[in-house]
């Protein structure tokens, strides 16, 4: 897998990437500068992870691509966003979905009062009344058998894991080339997180869907992704192939909680910090 990952990254430099972001700056409400020049590229057929702490700008990056920023009074003020070589930052979210770029929002955002199946069907809205929607519904149920069992329940009453599956399934119904996946692991049990990422991997390999995923769970994200970018304070501070990042000393220390001396005792860390404050 690691060989393939580096290959993909290598290809990205030569062939045209599916998504290319250059030096993007995002300002909310005309005053709050959130992204300070982010550049990244996502090769076709890849899984790229966007990592970083709370408030680093991961979600904002995804929303600047899918153009959900405007609904939150945010604005791309500098830089370019290209989807398959075409500038897209002036398109509406609707146009972007039609061009195959769908975002799965942080916190799932299922339509609570609609049933699971209705949720999935709304995902196909941009495709009109075409007949192959039914076939795609079956495909989604194949990947998420759990959803088929819960198809008649209101989405608001399903579990967190089921809602995450529902949100991803709903995005799939638009037949996307690129899914922007925002914090799929949020609030889920570790086992479920693995299960969701397994499905993401399968969708990537079998259906050829490209993923750009924002994730705080660095460990899981890097194990499934080919390539990773680490954001801090609205800037990319590090990027590299996933396995290279996983073995990087700084990443280990800051994001994976490991250091050369092995795991630090939590009590010691706390003690050290308390002393430092008094100095």
């Amino acid at each position, binding site marked *: 897998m690691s060989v393939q990952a580096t290959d993909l990254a290598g290809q990205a430099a030569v062939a045209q990437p599916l998504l290319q972001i250059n030096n993007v700056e995002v300002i909310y409400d005309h005053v709050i500068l959130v992204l300070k020049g982010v550049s990244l590229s996502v090769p076709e057929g890849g899984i790229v992870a966007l990592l970083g702490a709370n408030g680093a700008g991961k979600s904002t990056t995804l929303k600047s691509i899918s153009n959900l920023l405007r609904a939150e*009074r945010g604005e791309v003020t500098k830089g370019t966003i290209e989807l398959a070589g075409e500038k897209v930052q002036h398109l509406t979210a609707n146009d972007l*979905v039609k061009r195959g770029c*769908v975002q799965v929002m942080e916190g799932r955002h299922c339509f609570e009062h609609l049933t699971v199946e209705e949720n999935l*069907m*709304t995902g196909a809205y941009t495709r009109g009344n075409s007949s192959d929607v039914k076939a795609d519904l079956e495909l989604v149920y194949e990947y998420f058998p759990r959803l088929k069992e819960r198809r008649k329940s209101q989405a608001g009453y399903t579990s967190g894991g089921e809602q995450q599956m529902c949100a991803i399934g709903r995005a799939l119904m638009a037949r996307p080339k690129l899914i922007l996946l925002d914090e799929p692991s949020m609030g889920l049990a570790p086992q479920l997180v693995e299960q969701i990422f397994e499905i993401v991997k399968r969708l990537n390999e079998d259906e050829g869907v490209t993923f750009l995923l924002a994730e705080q769970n660095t460990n899981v994200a890097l194990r499934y992704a080919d390539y990773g970018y680490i954001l801090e304070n609205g800037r990319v501070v590090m990027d590299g192939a996933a396995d290279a990042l996983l073995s990087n000393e700084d990443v280990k220390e800051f994001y994976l909680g490991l250091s050369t001396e092995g795991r630090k005792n939590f009590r010691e860390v706390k003690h050290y910090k308390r002393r430092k404050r008094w100095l």
Partner: protein
Amino acid sequence: METFANLLGVDPFSIWFFFEVLIGGLMAGVMYSLVALGFVLIFKASSVFNFAQGVMVLFAALNFVGFLEVFSDLPVVLQVALAFIVTMAVMILLALVVERVVLRPLVNQAHISLFMATIGIAIFLEGFGELIWGSNIKPLDIGIPDDVTFVGDAMIQDSDLFAAIVASILVVTLALFFHYTRIGRALRAVADDHQAALSIGIPLNHIWIIVWSVAGFVALVAGIMWGSKLGVQFSLSILALKALPVLILGGFTSIPGAIVGGLIIGAGEKLAEIFLVDAIQTYIYSGFPAAIEEWFAYILALGFLVFRPQGLFGEKIIERV
């Protein structure tokens, strides 16, 4: 003290009289429901409380009467059909203008701003309607039957029956539309979560236009019904105020709620007017004023606000534990 029933010369304890009052009330309630329905549609899709819904009823009725006159040379069926179609076109145009001029610039503003904007729409429409069609009371007659039918000893107005049938058809059609079509599903999705709807490519602007057009259609139907009953006059817009207690009872987000709420308010106020006033005057206080119909609905609504604020059918806020 003469009671109301005695004045009418009927036996106040007859089951048929009770039945007649009840039916009359329910039929009046159907008319409230028609107005409330328009509110619910717009509230569901955009969380905007559309204060202009009452005026839209008036505006639609004014246009309808006006176009009836324009097409007065044609045979009646054609005349009514043409007036209906042209008025509907006007209501769709109105939806387009409202979306472009009012809703779009106010995206992401506080709900109260949008509410204020709809007050503006209400005032504009009232003035605009008067400017074009004049301010006289106009009779509206499209051949809705105005005989009476007797069921046992109870008298029922045919026009009320007609209104009830029309309202039922309208509600069933809307329910089917909302549950089984792609657009209807999208409307409910938008009602649940704007952001998520955007994220899967549902264009909110289109949804708004559609929902305002549907509300315009409902307003037109309500306008024709009310207009035939009372004549097309500017006090029609005040009827919208009666839709408020209906909404509070039924829940702002529920179409069946708007219907059942309307029926309860309609029947409740008529029954209270006849029987409650009777009882109070006989047993408690003989000087009790008789015009309870005017405020009964609002007191009922107040009770609901205290004990069941989401209404009878309002969507409960789903909370997972």
